[in-house]
């Protein structure tokens, strides 16, 4: 079952996301955005995503660092499914080999 706190979190997530969807159309649609605002708005999502996975970079395991590097190279060249498989495979294998 879904508890109230989880439900509240999910409903609020949906609400702020909907606000971002209509906000650009309602508030910014009529005017030119400055290049600076555009740059910041374009950089923000990547900043959050990399921050979420930052702990993986400082886990203190050499195997994880190598696996991350391998995964990053895969991500730059391949589509989602092969990248995920390479990420899982390299992490599993390297942990097994290097401990």
């Amino acid at each position, binding site marked *: *079952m*879904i*508890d109230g*706190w*989880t*439900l*509240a*979190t*999910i*409903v*609020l*997530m949906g609400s*702020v*996301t*909907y606000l*971002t*969807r*209509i*906000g*650009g*159309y309602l508030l910014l*649609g*009529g005017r030119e*955005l400055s290049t*600076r605002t555009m*740059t*910041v*708005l*374009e*950089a*923000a*999502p*990547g*900043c*959050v*995503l*990399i*921050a*979420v*996975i*930052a702990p*993986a*970079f*400082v886990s203190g395991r050499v195997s994880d660092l190598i696996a991350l590097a391998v*995964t*990053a190279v*895969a*991500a*730059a060249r391949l*589509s*989602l499914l092969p*990248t*995920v498989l*390479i*990420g*899982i*495979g*390299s*992490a*599993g294998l390297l942990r097994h080999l290097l401990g």
Partner: protein
Amino acid sequence: MRASAPVLIGLVPAALVLGAQATGKGLAPLAVPLMTGLNFAGGSEFAAVGLWTSPPHLLLIVGVTLLVNSRHLVMGATLAPWLRHLPRRQVLPALFLMVDESWAMALADAKTSHAGKFEPAFSLRYFLGVSAGVYVSWVGFTALGALLGPVLGDIERWGFDMAFPAVFLVLMRGMWKGFGAAVPWLVSLVVAAGVHLMIPGGWYVPAGAAAGIAVAWITALP
């Protein structure tokens, strides 16, 4: 809806991984389609599940959702000139379904069919067709992933946790605008990693993101 077929195939593995990871983090199987159906923005759902605890940190997760989805503001603003001929009572509900894929495809479709004018070129039907396909398969396959998750559970030991960084890195590749534009990301990574080592809890995410956004603001010349 037929036009969205290649997109749909690409999103199936991501949806399955998200659903499986979500139940692994303690979300009820029913909560997964609820989240993906109400929120319907993959990047923020991966971020939310990555930070999920039982009970979840509401402010942190909602704040991170807002930041990841801030790019919708740019997307909505670029779409606005193409929507002037449509009444708001149609546009506002339709925008609920705006995702990277439907936005990009509808905009491309409008640009190829427009004859020097913005107005009639944008096809709401085309936009809704692509969006509906993405919506049904995203919610459906994340729900399926949530049901399969417990079955796959013990694969986690074998490096399954690397699926998250892998998905995120692919998402970021899609946002890549060159090394200069990636400097804020690097700053965010370094600050987030540092804060993670020093302060327990999920606060490394807003700290890193805030540092990265500040650098983006400072380095982007007005």
